[in-house]
């Protein structure tokens, strides 16, 4: 059996279907790679026995003629998704020993389609971070340059797919946590519309922003996996009952490229844009040559997105993380003297610095006397930002922006400066606040490091977002570039 290091899911699926190799063989291949490149620190948990037994089950499914198009494909799950019987740490000491007693809907759905779980990917603690330096299990390396960060918070997922340790991985995106690491690692990464993918069993960071999504090498791969992961879930009140014939068709047909759409270029994203400007401009020209039309649009409230985001996400996180109290699960301090002592020490020992910072920011924003000035103000700005997008989408089908202001930075570059770190999310946060689907697509390099561009669509317009990415990936080869040494 020969498997190319950076095989696409689409390719592997076809070869599994053709019987070129079994899922068990393929799974062994990736397990071996995962064990060979532990220096990236991309996995928190690799469960070989579980992966192999799932692979056998996938092969049996195929033998019975019940395989889906993704049956037997091994992937990694971000360690924010609950996996029954398997460690689910969220990158935190707080859950360092916690074995989830149930499967997240995403895990259950992919599993029942025959997708194999290789293990759990490293991440910023409780998905809070833009560099994956906030993990209790250590920082993750970027395969393109290992002294660089892979981005965050889904840094482990991005790193391991970029290094060919799995053909795809799940991630979650609250303010850019899929798109930014996808850009930093030269991958295609998608955050679907808020409500498209169930949040049940996805450990919450900021409930009104969190959305599960995928990393892969191509838009076509994402379109192949997404229907087996997305869809209405009665266990999640915020899950959308929207059905989508196109998404359903992705189970059967390859992704067709979009044609002739009108794409907006929000001027606020390009004002003074440095490193990515040339690459995004080249992408525009490529798409233009294929018949896409471009037009400048304005999203005037963009500058307020980062402040509003850090208030809303902090507020929601501050109370989402109150359940970690050392009583029913998770870390408990030694010999608590009193209830308050139990709470204070368990939480202070269990949470890392960034998590504490966000809890306190959120507590501040919600506390008496500050609620109106911060939380409520942020929610009003959130509406203004969403209205900006809705107005723009009256004129254009999609928006094209850079994904990040720069390429992956070095470990430790912003370690002492949370505010500068937060600014890294400037281009991804507005779509999160608005609940819009967005994909980051590789669009070039700067000093040997990948750059990403972002396509944002209206609510539930994943079809146009992915099909435009597909059109672009048929025109260019940036997504076929891979780091060396793997």
């Amino acid at each position: 059996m020969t498997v190319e290091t950076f095989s696409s899911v689409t390719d592997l699926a076809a070869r599994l279907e053709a019987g070129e190799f079994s899922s068990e063989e393929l799974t062994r291949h990736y397990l071996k790679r995962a064990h060979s490149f532990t220096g990236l620190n991309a996995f928190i948990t690799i469960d070989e026995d579980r992966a192999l037994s799932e692979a056998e089950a996938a092969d049996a499914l195929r033998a019975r003629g019940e395989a889906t198009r993704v049956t037997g494909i091994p992937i990694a799950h971000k360690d924010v998704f609950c996996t029954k019987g398997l460690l689910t740490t969220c990158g935190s000491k707080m859950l360092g020993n916690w074995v989830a007693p149930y499967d997240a809907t995403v895990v259950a759905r992919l599993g029942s389609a025959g997708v194999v779980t290789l293990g759990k990917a490293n991440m910023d603690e409780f998905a809070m971070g833009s560099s994956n330096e906030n993990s209790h299990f250590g920082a993750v390396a970027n395969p393109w340059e290992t002294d660089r960060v892979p981005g965050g918070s889904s840094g482990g997922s991005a790193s391991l797919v970029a290094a060919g340790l799995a053909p795809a991985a799940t991630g979650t995106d609250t303010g850019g946590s899929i798109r930014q690491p996808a850009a930093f690692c030269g991958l295609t990464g998608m955050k679907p519309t808020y409500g498209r993918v169930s949040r049940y069993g996805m450990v919450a960071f900021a409930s009104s922003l969190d959305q599960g999504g995928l990393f892969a090498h191509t838009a076509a791969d994402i379109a192949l996996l997404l229907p087996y992961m997305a869809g209405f879930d009665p266990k999640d009140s915020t899950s959308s009952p929207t059905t989508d014939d196109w998404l359903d068709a992705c189970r059967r047909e390859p992704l067709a490229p979009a044609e002739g759409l009108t794409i907006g270029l929000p001027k606020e994203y390009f004002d003074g844009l440095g490193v990515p400007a040339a690459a995004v401009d080249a992408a525009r020209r490529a798409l233009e040559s294929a018949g896409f039309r471009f037009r400048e649009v304005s999203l005037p409230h963009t500058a307020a997105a980062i402040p509003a985001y850090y208030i809303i996400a902090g507020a929601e996180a501050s109370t989402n993380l109150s359940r970690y109290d050392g009583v029913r699960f998770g870390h408990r301090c030694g010999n608590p003297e009193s209830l308050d002592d139990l709470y204070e020490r368990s939480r202070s020992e269990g949470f890392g610095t960034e998590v504490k910072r966000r809890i306190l920011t959120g507590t501040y924003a919600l506390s008496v006397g500050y609620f109106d000035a911060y939380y409520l103000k942020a929610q009003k700005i959130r509406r203004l930002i969403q209205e900006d997008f809705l107005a723009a989408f009256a004129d254009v089908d999609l928006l094209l922006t850079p994904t990040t202001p720069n390429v992956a930075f070095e470990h430790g570059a912003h370690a002492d400066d949370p505010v500068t770190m937060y600014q890294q999310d400037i281009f991804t946060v507005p779509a999160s606040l608005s609940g819009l689907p967005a994909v980051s697509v590789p669009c070039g390099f700067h000093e040997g490091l990948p750059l990403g561009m972002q396509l944002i669509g209206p609510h539930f317009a994943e079809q146009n977002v992915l099909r435009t990415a597909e059109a672009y990936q048929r025109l260019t080869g940036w997504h076929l570039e891979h780091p060396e040494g793997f």
Partner: protein
Amino acid sequence: MSDIDIRHLTALAQLKLSEVEAEAVAGDLARIIDMVDQMQAMDTEGVRPLAHPLDTAARLRPDEVTEIVDRDLYQAGAPETEDGLYLVPRVVE
């Protein structure tokens, strides 16, 4: 606006910070709040707050018992239990 009472916040959040940590975190918070205060310049008069990106109504669930409770499984990860109860230091009421 950045008049941060770090002791009040840590008490509300049940976090215990050393003097050094508290000072560092208070400094970080002050910078974060300064950054966030850019919002204050924006006119939001008459704007309805948006709590949720899809801005739709709740979907309700039928009143049915659907959960089978496996106490042993759920308590497997609990720090301290006895006779099916979770234990904490004695709470005086």
